């Protein structure tokens, strides 16, 4: 079902409108479930729900719009988009505004813009563009250059400092290289190399608050009223949910207690408390189906650029929800990533949906191959 053979699109009435119905249905289901959870997590705040609805509308609109763009065009744009994004990142570092104690916004007069959002798309596009120029699998030199392409924006964003986004961008570039066929041996070596890097990073590359998060993650009881409070409370919420949950709108931890950021980054705790393990399994199944559909689209793509880009987009989405859920249930540090399509929030969701628009574009712009 998730891997239906390519059909000749011009035959259907909506033939000229590029859209992957299956992916759309999965995303819509997820968004709907997200709204149901948000209604409870926001304390039945109608205004918040309305704002989220508007954002979802915009995001789905953006997705459908992007789906109409041919992957060839995207491939041509990739280097320009990447260069433009790099310039913006530098601009942020030089002139950017301070938001939430970190420097990541660029004031463009009318609105504030986060260039790192653009880079979430531009980095995998650029790396895929570069690797697709050459035969695959890539040579060591090509791998190094590709990783460098991803590393520069990652470092710029980590300097802002925005650890969560930097992580996403690094992994989106990394996934392109992995999909391109980076040998496993090399992967093993680089993992070994990662340990001393991590040590150096811990001592010289991290801000105090980031170090705090890691320490607290390792031992939440260390600071139960400060940094560890988030995780302890969310674990109590989820754990007390049990198999079936306490029922929608009945989560005492979420409503009564101080469950911080319960409508944004920690919304999964509300869901886990109110819908229990069965509800959580349903949500994970939805996420899994979306990933599988993404990988199928990637596999059926007809050129290297499309394949690599589609694969990387899909896996980055996977990183999103795994890290968010992981941090809420206390197995990963709190890095501040939203639960995709469920958390209340703006720009990240639009970027995500544009990425899904690219997936749809890749899938629906295929030419009929004569075997």
């Amino acid at each position: 079902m998730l891997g239906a053979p390519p059909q000749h699109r011009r035959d259907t009435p909506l033939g000229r409108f590029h859209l992957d119905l299956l992916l759309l249905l999965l995303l819509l289901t997820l968004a709907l479930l997200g709204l149901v959870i948000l209604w409870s997590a926001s304390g039945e705040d109608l205004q918040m729900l309305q704002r989220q609805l508007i954002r979802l509308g915009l995001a789905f609109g953006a997705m459908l719009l992007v789906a109409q763009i041919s992957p060839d065009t995207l491939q041509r744009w990739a280097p320009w988009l990447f260069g433009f994004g790099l310039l913006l990142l530098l601009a942020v570092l030089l002139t950017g505004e301070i938001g939430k104690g970190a420097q990541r916004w660029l004031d463009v007069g009318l609105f504030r813009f986060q260039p790192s959002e653009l880079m979430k798309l531009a980095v995998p596009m650029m790396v895929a563009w570069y690797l697709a120029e050459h035969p695959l699998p890539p040579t060591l030199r090509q791998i190094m250059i590709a990783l460098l392409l991803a590393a520069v924006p990652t470092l710029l964003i980590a300097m802002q400092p925005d650890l969560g986004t930097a992580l996403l961008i690094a992994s989106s570039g990394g996934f392109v290289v992995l999909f391109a066929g980076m040998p496993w041996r090399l992967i093993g070596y680089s993992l070994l190399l990662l340990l001393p890097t991590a040590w150096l990073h811990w001592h010289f590359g991290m801000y105090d608050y980031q170090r705090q998060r890691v320490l607290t993650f390792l031992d939440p009881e260390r600071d139960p009223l400060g940094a560890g409070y988030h995780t302890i409370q969310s674990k109590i919420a989820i754990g007390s949910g049990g198999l079936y949950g306490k029922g929608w709108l009945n989560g005492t931890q979420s409503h009564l207690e101080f469950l911080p950021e319960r409508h944004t980054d920690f919304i999964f705790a509300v869901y886990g408390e109110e819908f229990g393990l069965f509800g959580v399994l349903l949500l994970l199944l939805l996420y899994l189906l979306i990933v599988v559909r993404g990988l199928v689209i990637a596999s059926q793509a007809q050129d290297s650029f499309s394949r690599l880009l589609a694969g990387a987009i899909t896996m980055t989405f996977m990183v999103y929800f795994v890290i968010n859920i992981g941090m809420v249930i206390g197995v990963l540090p709190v890095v501040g990533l939203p639960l995709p399509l469920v958390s209340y929030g703006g720009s990240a969701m639009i970027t995500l949906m544009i990425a899904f628009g690219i997936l749809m574009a890749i899938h629906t712009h295929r030419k009929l191959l004569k075997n």
Partner: protein
Amino acid sequence: MGSRYRSSIKDPIRESHLFHIRALQAGLFTLLLILLLIIRLFHLQVLEHDRYTTLSHNNRVTIQPLPPTRGLIYDRNGVLLADNIATFSLELVPERIADLNATLATIATLVQVDADDRQRFQRELRRHRRFEAIPLRFRLSDEEVARIAVNRYRLPGVEINARLLRHYPFADTTAHSVGYVGRINERELQQIDATAYAATDYIGKLGVERSHETWLHGEVGMQQVETNAHSRVLRVLNHTPAQPGSDLHLHLDIALQRVAELAFGEERGALVALDPATGAVLALVSVPAYDPNLFVNGIATHRYRALNESVSRPLFNRALRGQYPPGSTTKPFVGLLGLESGVIDHTHTVYCPGFYQLKGSSHRYRDWKKWGHGTVDLHHAISESCDVYFYDLAFNLGIDRMHDYLTRFGFGRRSGIDIGGESRGLMPSREWKRLTRNQPWYPGETLITGIGQGFMLATPIQLAAATATLASGGIRYQPLLVQAIQPPGNTQPQPTTPQRIGTFPMLDPDHWQEVVSGMIEVVHGARGTARRIGSDLPYQIAGKTGTAQVFSIAQDSEYVAEDLEKRLLDHALFIAFAPADAPRIAIAVVVENGGSGSGVAAPIARTVIEHYLAGLRSAEAS
């Protein structure tokens, strides 16, 4: 993986094959991660479920917001106008109560709960935030507190909370100036900062309480506490005290305010007294008023309806919102314009036969004195309030000049007093008439504007501000109720600075003196219209009477038969300042359906002026 095989030529089939393998691996990797998450979730939600359920039910750490103490409001002499009194209230958390009706019934056997309390409770119940305590009864007596405490075991979800309740000791007297606070409603909830108001139940709704909300409110505090299943606090872990709001000191003199209120007797109307040198509001009266204490916890519907539908309209702030034709009180301002514009001088006279006719028209514009005033100059035209003189002057000035000049005195503009809800009044102009009625301006309308009739409307605060401007020799100040703001812990109140909002180019001080002398003659002259109030004063009052035909304010449809005649009487107006040579107080009085300005309005003004100046005299003597 065959990764050692290299070629410079693209091999689509091989690349595709390679990708398929990687995609499959990625899928399996995802599945693995999800499985790990599920294992962890299973651990939390199934294996350790009991432990977390206990944690969630028994001892838990919560953060409780602490309400800041609202700032107090004092009058100019330090008399408390808005107080916080400690009371015990009986509150229910519906989410913790299995059978709400049974609980309510039990409570009713222990303490007195009347229909108003029930109604208010039901109203709050419909719109409360989840797990928020809803008050059922306020101001429990010690005995009632004890009775609930003894029966607490059979009343889960019922709490007795000590709360500070806003109280206005002067009740009606401060209703239209200090205003009141009330429980935060849904509309306000969306406008306020939810965190700052997390522990606050009340917000300023009207008057100073509303306009100075940010000062009075203070900053919310927090405490981290360990609570048990009934959300009783077991232990305070961490405590950030709330920051109380700032106290306000008003210019208002509550004794003067009381005197003014009493001077009205049974009459309806408004009075505004200002200090011409600063714009300080010394008294702001609108009678009848209402008891603001009724609104603090939400007024019962039937009581509100009674107030709202009362023919005498106690809820209506006449001082700021009542729009009355200013009548003859306009004349000093028009006369001043005549002098300053050179259209007349102080020797200019007009013969008043008791009516005025425009050339080529047979319509007679009548003087209030049927047989006329004879030949009058400006001085006597003001003191005797000759209409014909001002018809003639208005005709020569034209509406454009009158509009511009009177607008600069504040007519047709909000005075800018530091509380909200002010009406604009109306200073008509050609353009206004074209825009609103799509009609040209007629010469006859210029005439009646000259005596403050026709379209022109003014509020008591506007009249008082214009009079103060006249008294101060052309300097306009923004009327201010708040004299000083005293932040918590700071012993020195920080005074607000008087705000100059305009200065007249005074062409000739003699012109102003001429008008003022006419106004002195009103009170102290042998034929002055308010001569009855001029006797036995150690100083002179400069005043002007006015009478306005009733058509704007008597909009009440329910006329009581015996009141009918009274309600068709003209509104009585009086403006004044004193002492005339060195003004300390400027005042405007409107008595609705009072008849003539000299008869009812002027004596009220005299009482207030005399009380205030006597107070100043004794303060200066000691």
